[in-house]
């Protein structure tokens, strides 16, 4: 079976985004804020309108356009479990105008949400396969919903590995989850950092240095990757060497986005809009886009 990225059942949501409301955000309230790293926070959000909240369904890999009122809009991927109905989480790195303004908001503040947008990790298609998740830095956030989904449906999948590389131990996202996951027998979690500190006893080096430790059957496995472009590039080279076929390496591409619905043109790579036909792509599909230079 040639793997392609999945299209979620409800591409642009049930009530949000359909018809006249396509560009109008839905109000959500910040219920909790978790400091992940010095420049990253996870915001737990709940929709103000309960009816809407009940109807809101999304799939791992999708994202929303987050409005910080007074600052603007930015695309942020879902970072929580899709099975959780009463809230969802967004992990926001403080990098620009909108994300900077988001970091200043307190609990109880109201933000705007448009979504769910984009396509999703092909979690249905890969049932029965070994799953190797490789992430770097803030790339763990878009993969976290996939990880939580797989863990909740553990028997549907084969061997399950997570390789995670961060710059320093303090820069790791979801430290609480990593600690819990490391305790599991059915989930192999390997971590590495570029630069260690006094307390770090784990691997030091780039994430590809963890690959030799992975025991997986490439003929029936899929790699889900997300991280800085250079990490993806070198990881993919190693995965090819390990015997992964091009359609079994899946990544989430990042691009500057504005509308999130395939109209404004910013996220276009060749003839493909990342916000509607992505952000999840297989390496095979990415090779069809000359602009990526693969």
């Amino acid at each position, binding site marked *: 079976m040639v793997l392609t990225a999945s299209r979620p059942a409800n591409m642009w949501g049930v009530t949000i985004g359909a018809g006249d409301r396509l560009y109008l955000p839905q109000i959500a309230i910040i219920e909790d804020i978790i400091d992940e790293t010095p420049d990253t926070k996870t915001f737990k959000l709940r929709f103000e309108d309960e009816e809407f909240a009940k109807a809101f369904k999304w799939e791992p890999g999708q994202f929303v356009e987050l409005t910080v009122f007074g600052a603007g809009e930015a695309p942020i991927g879902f970072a929580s479990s899709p099975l959780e109905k009463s809230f969802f989480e967004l992990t926001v790195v403080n990098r620009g105008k909108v994300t900077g303004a988001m970091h200043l908001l307190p609990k109880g503040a109201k933000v705007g949400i448009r979504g769910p947008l984009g396509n999703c990790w092909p979690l249905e298609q890969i049932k029965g396969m070994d799953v190797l998740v490789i992430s770097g830095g803030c790339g763990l956030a878009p993969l976290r919903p996939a990880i939580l989904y797989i863990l909740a449906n553990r028997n549907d999948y084969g061997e399950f590995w997570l390789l995670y590389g961060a710059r320093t131990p303090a820069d790791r996202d979801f430290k609480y989850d990593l600690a819990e996951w490391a305790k599991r027998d059915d989930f192999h979690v390997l971590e590495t950092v570029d630069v260690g500190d006094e307390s770090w006893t784990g691997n030091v080096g780039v994430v590809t240095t963890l690959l030799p430790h992975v025991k997986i059957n490439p003929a029936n496995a899929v790699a889900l990757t997300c991280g800085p472009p250079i990490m993806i590039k070198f990881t993919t080279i190693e995965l090819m060497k390990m015997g992964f076929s091009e359609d079994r390496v899946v990544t989430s591409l990042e691009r500057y986005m504005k*509308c999130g619905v395939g*109209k*404004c043109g910013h996220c276009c790579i060749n003839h493909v809009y990342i916000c509607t036909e992505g952000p999840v792509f297989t390496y095979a599909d990415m090779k069809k886009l000359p602009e990526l230079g693969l």
Partner: protein
Amino acid sequence: MKVGDTYILAKTDLPMFFAAIGHEMRLIAPRAFFGGDVIFDIVESPKEIVWNYGHDIYPPKRFLLPHYEDMFRYTTGDDVRIEPLPAPPKQAIVGIRSCDVSAIRFQERFFGDQIDDPYYRARSENTVLFSIVCNKPPKRECFCICCDSGPYLESGFDVQLTDLGDRYLYEIGSEKGEQATQLGAFMLKPAEPKDTAERKRIELQADSLFQTVAYMAKAIMFVSEDQVPAQVWEELGSTCFRCGACTNLCPVCTCFTVEDRPEPNGCFTRCRSWDSCQFSGFTREASGHNPRPTFGTRVQRRFYHKASYQYILRDGRHGCVGCGRCVSACLTKLDLPSVVKRIRRAMHKYLQPQPASPNSS
């Protein structure tokens, strides 16, 4: 009156006909401004309409995709409220040409593709186009014959007018056109065979009068196959002034940026405005990484969007209607006909003929 019908509208009846249309909807037509400038704008009376204009720089696409468009307003603070803005008014764009009509149809298809853009839909539903056939190319820079978008259309128009001297041939091409025609139907007479014959004669003659051509086939091939070397693109980009005129004036271009604009009373208005892939900030990410860091990569992007198989398949036509505005508006020579020619000629240098195999018999 139905789609496919052809009528005659006497030139003397033109003002009254459009006055009747103007009762029900606002009229947008070419208007004369200072120093001979002609711009599509709201006209108060049909008498202001300039029927035989040459250059008009500002495309009528702005009445469907405004240059600066307010999307909605919101208040901030504890009680955040989002206020959508009122629906756009009904409008008739009169005197628009086949190239611009083709472009609007392209944009309607684009904005409705996969998911519907509600602002564009609201405006396009409320817009009827009374287009006019070009008996001769209005300016030297026109090349619609190279793009299947003029000088007359066989389909895709609402109402198409052809100047037959003392009268106009009046063709209804869509339901919207049909409905709008009801307003002035009493002034129309059925067309006769001599009218359609005259129209045919005009069509055949018009094609031969074009001065600018863009032979696109080879350029489309090279661009689609990603065969044009980076050096060629960089050479093209080395003279670009980065003004964004090409994308602003192109009736096909649709890219926009979105900004939250503060208002004096403390509210904010989310506004979208024309953006251009020719700006370096168009793709620069928050981290500072820019997938299109050079002028050459951005020029390459624009021509990929204008002339590649991939987009032709996706959009139903290539991204150029030959209106010639980029030729007039570019401060250097990065208009489509010039670039297409330069790509073809540059590729001569790079595509060497393959030597025959020494063993061939």
